[in-house]
């Protein structure tokens, strides 16, 4: 993607995000029970949707890396995995924060250890540990170990998604793909869909930037390793 295309995409995403903000704060109707605080929903749900998408990309890239780790494409897969993992943590953190800010006025508490919240917190911890493993380990095996952790870590994603269906929770029951009569008010659907699209597009754009950074880092590390080898060879002479 060249600079002009990237700038064009960034402008489109900014317009989409602004439109989503307008829909969420001005156009969508006020919810009868909770009032205006329910409008957090239009950022809370898209944040998690983007986080789960990123974790799914991280899983696919990790599997690809493990299968093809002795081929030239492995480094690109590793860059995709780490970029998606990092963005997943960012969006999951936003989901957790917006959730707590929503919970306090509605439930009277910032946090409760119910299955949905706990499984989400565990998911966040898993991917934070994934990033820490990658950042702190000096071993050449770190990408392989991280890829294995990513595969096991993803098991928590369907648990988070299904937790409000499997157990009785303080967290509201599903409004999307839920039981009959549990759906969202049709007037709220456009704001949700626009913000979902906006967050996914924004996530894709930042993912691309993060991927380019990771590839640049990989190239730099290769060049540094070659340079060190050259120096060692010259000293040996």
């Amino acid at each position, binding site marked *: 993607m060249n600079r002009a295309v990237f700038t064009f995409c960034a402008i489109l995403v900014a317009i989409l995000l602004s439109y989503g*903000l307008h829909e969420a*704060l001005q156009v969508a109707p006020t919810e009868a029970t*909770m*009032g*205006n*605080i329910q*409008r*957090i929903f239009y*950022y*809370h749900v898209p*944040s998690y949707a983007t986080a789960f998408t990123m974790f799914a990309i991280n899983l696919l890239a990790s599997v690809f890396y493990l299968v093809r780790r002795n081929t030239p494409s492995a480094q690109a897969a590793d860059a995709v995995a780490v970029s998606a993992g990092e963005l997943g943590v*960012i969006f999951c*953190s*936003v989901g957790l*924060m*917006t959730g707590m*800010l*929503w919970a*306090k*006025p*509605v439930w009277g508490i910032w946090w409760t250890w119910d299955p949905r919240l706990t499984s989400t917190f565990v998911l966040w911890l898993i991917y934070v540990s994934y990033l820490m493993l990658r950042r702190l380990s000096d071993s050449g095996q770190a990408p392989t170990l991280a890829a294995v952790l990513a595969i096991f870590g993803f098991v928590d994603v369907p648990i988070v998604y299904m937790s409000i269906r499997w157990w009785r929770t303080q967290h509201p029951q599903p409004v999307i793909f839920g039981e009959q009569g549990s759906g969202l008010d049709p007037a709220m659907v456009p704001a949700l869909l626009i913000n979902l699209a906006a967050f996914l597009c*924004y996530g894709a754009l*930042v993912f691309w*930037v*993060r991927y380019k*950074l990771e590839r*640049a*880092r990989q190239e*730099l590390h290769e*060049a*540094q390793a070659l*340079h060190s080898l050259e120096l060692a060879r010259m000293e040996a002479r």
Partner: protein
Amino acid sequence: MDTVRSLQHLHIAYILTWCVQLGYVIYLLVGFARVKRESEELKK
């Protein structure tokens, strides 16, 4: 429900979301600058 506090929480949630995202974008830009600087040092 305290309407004023609810509105405060709503605004904080929206502002915090974009503070986190903006912070991350700045972190990426700093990363690019560091890679560029180290590449130039290596070329010297």
